[in-house]
């Protein structure tokens, strides 16, 4: 995923599954906006801007982050993340994990209804998760369900899920949507159990949802109807906001946020995203750690944060955002404090006294990255590294660079998850997504140990060590976690920001 900037961010990493074990509460994600003075008013219609169109209405097929963001209001899983990244029970009332960590038993909440009025039973859960795990076909619809051995529904209110091997990050997968047993029409007329129910969808234009009166949580939601309107151009979005045509503009550009600050409520929080410059470590000269370190020393992250994000970003030193405070290894951000002399001498040591030429490929759809790339090119110039910018189409980036690993350096934003394993596993030597070509046996064993570890404190230590290893190896240049900004109508209250790519409208309400 992208960044904040022009709202182009956020699509790169796009698995909807996220979460952390409910008991293990995550960090201090900032929540609700400043409570306005007026009292709460029931009802009302709200229009929320979204930047891209939806890919599928079927939550099991949908992969785009932008879709998950919207469908979050319509669907629920056994568990549901809150604004702090903690997993709370949703359809499930409670659950237990067997000692071997292989078997999960869920107790279904009573009185949960689907939008079509049908009451929810364990059969629906079984159908949904078996479908996701591909138990019939042998091919899981979602990778996170790959480790599921079986899903059983011993009675109407109990579901038992068995894994092939223990996995501490599995619980996050259970935020996946539950749909009615045997329901096939999700793409036309999605039916879920969330606070809002689907009303209509016009491709390229909007998706409208309305209040689901039978939602199991009383008084939720407050709004009668929410329209997610697709406005792909930020300038048009700004105009629409100003003219009152939309009420909530998530991921508004930083420039624009400042412009509307006086007339709107504004929020700006880290979004659990890692923007980084990656090296193709298999290629010369990046196979030499001194070169990678030299480039790290040459970069001035503060200048980038100033220039591209207007200061609204958090400096990073490894592949984890401080949003996940519990796992976050502090102090790595300044490991490679800008030092041009050191950078030059490292280059000299590596045999490049006059620098070298390289290509920085950047996905052209993300203006934020394109901008960052321009600043980086200017900074590297100072140590004699000539950077040729190569803007590539997103589809080309995915195929050639991400899958094909055919590049020198590239710049991208990697979406954060609620669980560090799912963030860091790209660096495993045998990971199909290891487009860095990073390979460090010590890192591999550390991460493997972390995911299998059941002890909380030990696991945290292992994850921190993994981060440090990445930083030591200068596996990439970790730049920042750009803030996500939201501008809201001043009459609205109760809006929560998540360390995830979601819009939660269930808590939003109008004030008098």
């Amino acid at each position, binding site marked *: 995923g992208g960044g904040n900037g022009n709202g182009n961010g956020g699509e790169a990493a796009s*698995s909807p599954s996220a979460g952390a074990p409910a008991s293990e509460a995550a960090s201090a994600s900032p929540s609700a906006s400043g409570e306005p003075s007026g009292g709460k008013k029931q009802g009302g219609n709200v229009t929320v801007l979204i930047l891209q169109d939806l890919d599928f209405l079927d939550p099991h097929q949908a992969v*785009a*982050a932008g879709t998950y963001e919207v469908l979050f209001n319509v669907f629920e899983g056994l568990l549901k993340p809150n604004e702090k990244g903690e997993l709370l029970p949703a359809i499930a009332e409670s659950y237990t994990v067997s000692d071997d960590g292989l078997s999960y038993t869920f107790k279904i909440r009573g009185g949960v209804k689907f939008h079509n009025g049908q009451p929810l039973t364990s059969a629906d859960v079984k159908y949904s998760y078996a479908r996701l795990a591909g138990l019939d076909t042998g091919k899981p619809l979602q990778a996170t369900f790959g480790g599921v051995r079986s899903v059983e529904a011993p009675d109407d209110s109990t579901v038992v899920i068995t894994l092939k091997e223990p996995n501490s990050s599995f619980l996050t997968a259970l935020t996946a949507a539950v749909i009615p047993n045997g329901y096939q029409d999700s793409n036309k007329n999605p039916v879920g159990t969330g606070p809002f129910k689907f009303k209509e969808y016009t491709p*390229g234009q909007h998706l409208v949802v309305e209040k689901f009166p039978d939602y199991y949580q009383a008084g939720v939601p407050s709004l009668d109807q929410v329209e997610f309107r697709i406005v*792909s151009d930020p300038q048009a979005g700004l*105009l*629409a906001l100003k*003219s009152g045509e939309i009420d909530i503009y998530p991921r508004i550009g930083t420039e624009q946020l400042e412009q509307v600050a006086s007339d709107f409520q504004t929020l700006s929080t880290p979004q659990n995203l890692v923007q980084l410059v990656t090296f193709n470590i298999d290629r010369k000269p990046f196979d030499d750690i001194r070169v990678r370190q030299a480039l790290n020393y040459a970069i001035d992250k503060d200048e980038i944060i100033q220039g591209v994000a207007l200061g609204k970003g958090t400096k990073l030193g490894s592949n984890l955002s401080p949003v996940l405070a519990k796992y976050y290894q502090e102090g790595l951000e300044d490991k490679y404090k800008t030092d041009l002399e050191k950078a030059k001498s490292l280059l000299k040591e590596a045999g490049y006294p006059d620098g070298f030429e390289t290509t920085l490929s950047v996905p052209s759809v993300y203006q934020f990255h394109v901008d960052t790339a321009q600043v980086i090119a200017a900074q590297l110039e100072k140590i004699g590294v000539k950077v040729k910018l190569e803007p590539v189409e997103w*589809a080309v980036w995915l195929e050639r660079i*991400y899958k094909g690993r055919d590049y020198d350096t590239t710049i991208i934003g990697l979406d954060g998850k609620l669980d560090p394993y799912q963030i860091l596993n790209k660096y495993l030597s045998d990971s199909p997504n290891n487009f860095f070509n990073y390979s460090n046996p010590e890192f591999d064993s550390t991460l493997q140990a972390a995911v299998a570890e059941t002890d909380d404190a030990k696991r945290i230590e292992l994850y921190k060590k993994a981060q440090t290893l990445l930083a030591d190896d200068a596996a990439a240049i970790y730049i920042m976690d750009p803030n996500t900004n939201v501008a809201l109508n001043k009459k609205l209250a109760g809006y929560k920001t998540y360390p995830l790519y979601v819009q939660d409208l269930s808590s939003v309400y109008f004030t008098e």
Partner: protein
Amino acid sequence: MNYYFRRLFTLALTVVLVLILTFSVFRVIPGDPALAILGVEASQEQIEMLSEKLGTDRPMAVQLLEWFRGAATLDLGTSLRYSEPVSDLIASRLPVTLILALESVAIVIAFSIPLGIAAARRPGKAADLAVSVLTQLGLAVPSFWMGILLLLLFGLTLNWVPVSTYVGWDENPWLALRSTFLPAAALAIPQIAIVVRYLRTSLLEQLNLDYVRTARSKGLGDRAVLYGHALRNSLLPVATVIGIQFGELLAGSLVIEQVFSLPGFGSLLISAIGNRDYPLVQGLVLFIAASVIVVNFLVDLSYRWLDPKIKLR
């Protein structure tokens, strides 16, 4: 008869050429539609599964043939990205682009004919010079920049027109017209300039022809000569130009829709190209090319009405 046959044959040939062209485009460019949909987190199995489901794992030639077979029965296939029939997607975006194009054509006609006449009536005089300066400027300002300027002026500064809200044609026709007025105007301005220039030249040419002298020698007044005789004959090249413009307007709307964030063909096509959603791209290209060609064909037919000399041989 023969004429129509030949025309239709050429038309069909043109469309097929255009389609093969687009298809080859997709043959050469890198980018896997399944990957484009699934993004970075997708596993290899997921990609393969999706490719199989989309049918993109088959050889290109098979896909092309299949697509043509479908297109022959007006089935444009299913969008890879939206898994909706391409024809439905086109239909859902058509009103916007069509209104935009038609509104522009209407604006073009409404403005260019009086301006052209004003310029041609007294060549070299003040009105002519003014029109000529205006048309030169109109031609030179890129329409999307004109759109930005209009947006800046009428949307941001004056707040005269709603911006960025596209109101459905079926919801409120009046608002729909109003919300597309600025982009339509931005699109129309360069085209007005073109038509005015053609009309002026053509009218001046006609006014210099012998038959105008004959008409005057009958005792007809200036207006009768202009409107009754010269104008009609000079509309012939203008009709051609407007026919060609329809295509330009359709294409121009691709760009202007981006400026005004209108949910028309433009955003659909650009995202379809980005997503390698080739049935959608093919469908859109086919549709646009076909409409351009059909409009040009209609213009050809209007020749018959405007110029009896052209025997449709």
